[in-house]
């Protein structure tokens, strides 16, 4: 039983696993993430009927990876990755991931950016709990040997997005809801990366 509390916290925890072709796994990251203000933006639309009427539009159903995550100075008002991948080729044309372009709502403007769609079967609610787990996979063909301006760059940030809380009619308008930076990973076709992301509600212990 939890102690007295006057608020409930949405936490996130991210584990990044490197899975080699021979099946061996190495945990690269095992740490909490940052829930950003887009989560509140989405929920306030859900609770007032000001946004989409479609439940699916409030699903966290996509993610982005990027190459410019800072080591410090990340704030919860963050609304986009610092250096998101911008094309199907950067995500890997040979990958099995489904890539979708959408007009992402950010603090400053609306940007057309690609995201990887999270298959439904990789989102799991634990029975009798308030915990939701997302399994995101960058397979062996994903995000390899990315270059910008002729220079090799490495992935070091990831974020998940809520699909379309405002109910935009023509094209989904996702919002960033959680974010994490990590040490640079030079992704190659020798391994896949598995991101095990858990969002859970827990009251503050005061």
């Amino acid at each position: 039983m939890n102690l007295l509390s006057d608020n409930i916290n949405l936490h996130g925890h991210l584990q990044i696993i490197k899975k080699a072709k021979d099946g061996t796994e190495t945990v690269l990251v095992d740490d909490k993430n940052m829930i950003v203000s887009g989560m509140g933006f989405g929920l306030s639309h859900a609770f007032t009927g000001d946004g989409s009427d479609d439940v699916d539009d409030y699903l966290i159903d996509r993610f982005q990876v990027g190459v410019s995550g800072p080591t410090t100075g990340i704030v919860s008002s963050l609304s986009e990755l610092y250096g998101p991948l911008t094309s199907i080729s950067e995500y890997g044309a040979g990958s099995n991931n489904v890539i979708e372009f959408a007009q992402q709502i950010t603090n400053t403007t609306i940007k057309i950016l690609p995201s990887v769609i999270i298959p439904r079967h990789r989102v799991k609610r634990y029975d009798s709990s308030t915990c939701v787990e997302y399994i995101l996979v960058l397979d062996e063909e994903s995000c390899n040997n990315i270059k910008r301006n002729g220079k090799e760059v490495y992935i070091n940030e990831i974020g998940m997005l809520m699909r379309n809380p405002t109910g935009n009619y023509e094209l989904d308008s996702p919002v960033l809801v959680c974010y994490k930076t990590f040490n640079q990973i030079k992704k190659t076709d020798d391994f896949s990366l598995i991101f095990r992301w858990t969002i859970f509600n827990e009251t503050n212990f005061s």
Partner: protein
Amino acid sequence: MREKDKNSVLGITGHLSIVKRMKDGTEEVLLDDSNIIVSGMGVGLSYLFTASGSRSILDYQIDRFQVGVSGPPTGGVTSSIFQLSGALTGTEYGTNSNLYLDTRDQLTGTNVTSNRLFALIPKHKITRVGNASVRYTLVLDENACNNLSRSGQTLNLNEIGMFMKNPTGNASPRPILVCYRTFSNIRKTSDFSLIFRWTLNF
């Protein structure tokens, strides 16, 4: 979108002010304090995020409330509360009140409790404030909840809770408690109405 925290946590908080409004329009603030968000909120959100509950977004909205006479609960106020300690029943909400009452089975922990009475919150009293806050205005009018007594014993209002309508998507809605607050005894009479201004910040 505004900045909330500089750490990894998004706190959903709630704030409740209770205003006593006399017939002549004068107002007195009886309470202005934070509330308790209870675990039912997390249950509802986990259904929403996995699309494993209701397929209607309306079922995830906080559209009803209860008041009660037995707060705080015996075990103390904890986030695991799933019901009011002494929610009003039958005609206690007031037969001449403007409240729209709805009787439903309520999710209470792992159980379902039959025939609980709820007062519905009109849509126009639910307002999105800023980018990440929602304000609910609940009104117990002059004809509501007056001169309560049970078995000849005088009772006073001292607890309130708001409910998410039906996150599990049951054919007949099963509300779940999502936020709760106790307050000092209020002997409600027809001389005044009570206005509960409840704000949830995400």
